[in-house]
């Protein structure tokens, strides 16, 4: 085991530029789907919290999509987008959407209507209500969803190697192909580390956003 680790370290040093490129690709494969997921998912989640119809359609659609494994989505995208970065991005975007969407929906839905009504009754304009009342109350739960999405996408971005989109998964694929656990580790270890970092970091953000004395479900 120890020698495997040493070998992995050795391999990483010798191929440091390839490792570095793969890490960059991996981070891009995390950042782009996450960014799209946030830009689309946050407003959609907010909307679906206010409308029963939107919420039914949206949550059912994404829950259905969730059933399809990421790997399958990945390969389904290939005929349209080719063996490319964008195929991977499409698959990973579909992956991050449900946690972001659902947590945003839940976060806004759980705000007591009495509080929203108090603000309205006191003459607060809708924009101010969103900014000063709803957002701060929804934030901790929304961040929890973003955390789930981030950790999932970091792990799943390894699959991008199967469609030739690179990332740290490339080492894992290679490691399997040549039966060398050291190479496999060069891919797997940084992925695990990244996921752990995201989990710890975003948990801290989530706690900071949680106002003391306010309990939110989830």
């Amino acid at each position: 085991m120890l020698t495997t680790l040493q070998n992995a370290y050795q391999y990483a040093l010798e191929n440091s530029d390839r490792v570095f490129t793969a890490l960059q690709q991996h981070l891009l494969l995390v950042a782009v789907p996450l960014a799209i997921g946030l830009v689309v998912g946050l407003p959609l989640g907010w909307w679906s919290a206010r409308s029963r119809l939107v919420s039914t359609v949206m949550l059912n659609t994404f829950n259905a999509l969730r059933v399809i494994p990421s790997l399958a989505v990945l390969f389904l995208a290939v005929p349209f987008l080719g063996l490319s970065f964008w195929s991977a991005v499409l698959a990973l975007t579909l992956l991050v959407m449900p946690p972001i969407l659902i947590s945003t929906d839940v976060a806004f839905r759980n705000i007591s209507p009495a509080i929203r009504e108090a603000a309205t009754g006191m003459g607060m304009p809708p924009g101010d209500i969103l900014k000063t009342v709803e957002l701060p109350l929804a934030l901790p739960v929304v961040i929890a969803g973003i955390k789930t999405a981030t950790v999932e996408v970091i792990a799943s971005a390894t699959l991008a190697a199967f469609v030739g989109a690179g990332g740290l998964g490339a080492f894992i694929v290679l490691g399997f192909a040549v039966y060398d656990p050291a190479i496999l580790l060069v891919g797997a270890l940084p992925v695990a580390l990244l996921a752990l970092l995201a989990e710890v970091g975003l948990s801290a953000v989530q706690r900071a956003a949680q106002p003391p004395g306010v309990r939110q479900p989830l």
Partner: protein
Amino acid sequence: MAKLELQNLTKAYSRDIVPVKKLNLAVEDNEFLTLVGPSGCGKSTILRLIAGLDQPTEGRVMIGDRDVSPLPPGDRNIAMVFQSYALYPHMTVRDNVASGLKMRHLPAGDIQKRVQEVSGVLGLDPLLDRKPAKLSGGQRQRVALARALVRNPDVFLLDEPLSNLDALLREQVRADLKQIFEDQKSPIVYVTHDQTEAMTLSTKVAVLSEGHLQQLGHPHDIYKTPANRFVASFIGSPQMNLFPLSRSGNDVALGDFRLPLPGGVQAASVILGIRPEHLRLPQEGDAHIVSGNVFLVENLGMHDLVSLKVQGDPSLTLRALISADASWSKENLKLALPPESIHWFDGETEQRLK
């Protein structure tokens, strides 16, 4: 400062649910109007219509001489206190109170000054930096009140603000409320199902039942001359004795006892009402006396609440408040009905007979 007027106000949620029916009401400056009625009679709906949280199906809400019905809540300059308080849980007491002013874009200094004033009046100074979760029910209630007071609104709306407090605290906060609002010029509309609150706080009481205004008047007038059977039974504690009776000639029979109807009454059947506190042990010269066997005595401290079955008709139960010092026998207790304290209502329409 402005007068609040409801004109022909109607709200229908569906064809069968019409909690407010053609309501006409006016509340002037310096007036404290209480809407009182049983749960579900449409009180909260009326407040929501005034605040603009709901749109009326028909009719108008006027503040001053302005029809505010088409305006959003933000343009009505109203302050509201809710039964659940609905404080913002993520804000300190200070920010909760200041939130009522933020949208006016006042200089920060002015806002702070106003918050200080109000928090001084309500004794919130030591709590200003706490979050609502760290406050007791009574304290939260005061913060909700402060958030409304700080606005200097054209109209105050309060929806059962005391009902989440325990009995002891409720009495104390009720007295505080009365003092605080005595200094306010703007019209106040206060909703409660508790008639004691209605009687003690208001300059004017509107009794509601099933969306209809039953009576509007000074608390004393409502107590003294209830407009119909519903008001008679709803206002006053213990409840008024009410007996539906059929007439024979110019008399009615209450068990074995005959009581003359007041002159000019045409109704074929009537309802006789008398408050427990107006029945008394007979004295020299009392004309109308009934008697019966006492089957229940409830000690209320200063008084005993005595229930007896009227002689001649055991289905008639009469309840009387008798001074705890008085001596009387349980067997065949005699009680006088002072004629000026008897209320007569039409047996059909249940309206007061004059």
